[in-house]
């Protein structure tokens, strides 16, 4: 799946077309916001954050992202995405890659 922000070209062959569009739009908006949060934490431009893919490494890959920075990142996600992140939610898969974090945020939002 693409993690590029809304480009209008997101398409998948399965699923009903209308639902597919809104899901894709939702994901693109979340992707944009999540990248903006990471850009704020890492102090990089949004353009640079746009280059993140599902496989881009986060915790354990970027020296800036120590446990305190990750804690700040999660707290900011709670505020900006209006979600609550529990201790049990936080695991290696969720923090290791950008795709993992995006999938987690998506799942949290769909719970709400």
């Amino acid at each position, binding site marked *: 799946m693409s993690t590029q922000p809304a480009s209008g070209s997101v398409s998948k062959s399965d699923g009903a077309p209308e639902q597919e569009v809104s899901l894709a739009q939702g994901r693109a908006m979340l992707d944009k916001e999540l990248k903006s949060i990471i850009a704020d934490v890492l102090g990089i431009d949004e353009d640079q954050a746009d280059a993140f893919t599902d496989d881009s490494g986060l915790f354990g890959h970027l020296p800036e992202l120590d446990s305190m920075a990750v*804690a700040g990142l999660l*707290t900011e996600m709670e505020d900006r995405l209006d979600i609550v992140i529990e*201790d049990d939610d*936080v695991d290696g898969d969720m923090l290791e890659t950008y795709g993992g974090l995006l999938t987690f945020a998506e799942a949290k939002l769909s719970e709400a």
Partner: protein
Amino acid sequence: MIATWQAPLQNGKTSEELLFAIDRERAKRVLILPALFDEANKMRRFTVQLMRRLDSVGIDSFLPDLPGSNESTTPLEQQSLSSWQMACADVAKQVSATHILSIRAGALLAPDNLPGWHYAPQTGSKLLRAMLRARTIAAREAGRDENSDQLLELGRREGLVLAGWQIGDLMLRELETAKPSKSELHSVIAQKDIGGPGLWLRAEPDEDDAQVKTLATIVCGEEEISE
């Protein structure tokens, strides 16, 4: 510019603490109440940048080390929010502050009797939540399973080391409920009023000319800022 101040401690003694001061005996004298713990480190560069900007627009400012913070040799685990509040009220008198400017959780320490601003104030519970989370994430990384609720329970009785900070039991209990002062003399400056991301979010300390300029303009009030 580097001076010292005598901080009152809860045991009735005092400790000598560092004071970064830009004092040219001008009318407006702003006591800065710094961000706390990890955010203090991340925001110090920005805070000093702000003080230099305030100086350039004719405002004196004072940044005290709280006992147990920054260069202080006083044990942090013996400090509490209430002891820091007492210390802040005292240092305000020592430097003859006319205003306060708190940064982030520094708002929890603001004396009610001086006018001023809370920049991006943070509640104690949010601060504590982020620090607990940092500890549980680090523990998990090290293969230990720790849980925030159990840590809190322990911390309320015995204090806790959070993200490297020795938080005493009283400090922890006070943080759980502490909210920025609601004095009518204080106004809130939200990050959206400043523009750009808050620098406390940064993994590394940073500075930002545009943000400092906007913040200084607000503190300066109606007085014109000359370029």
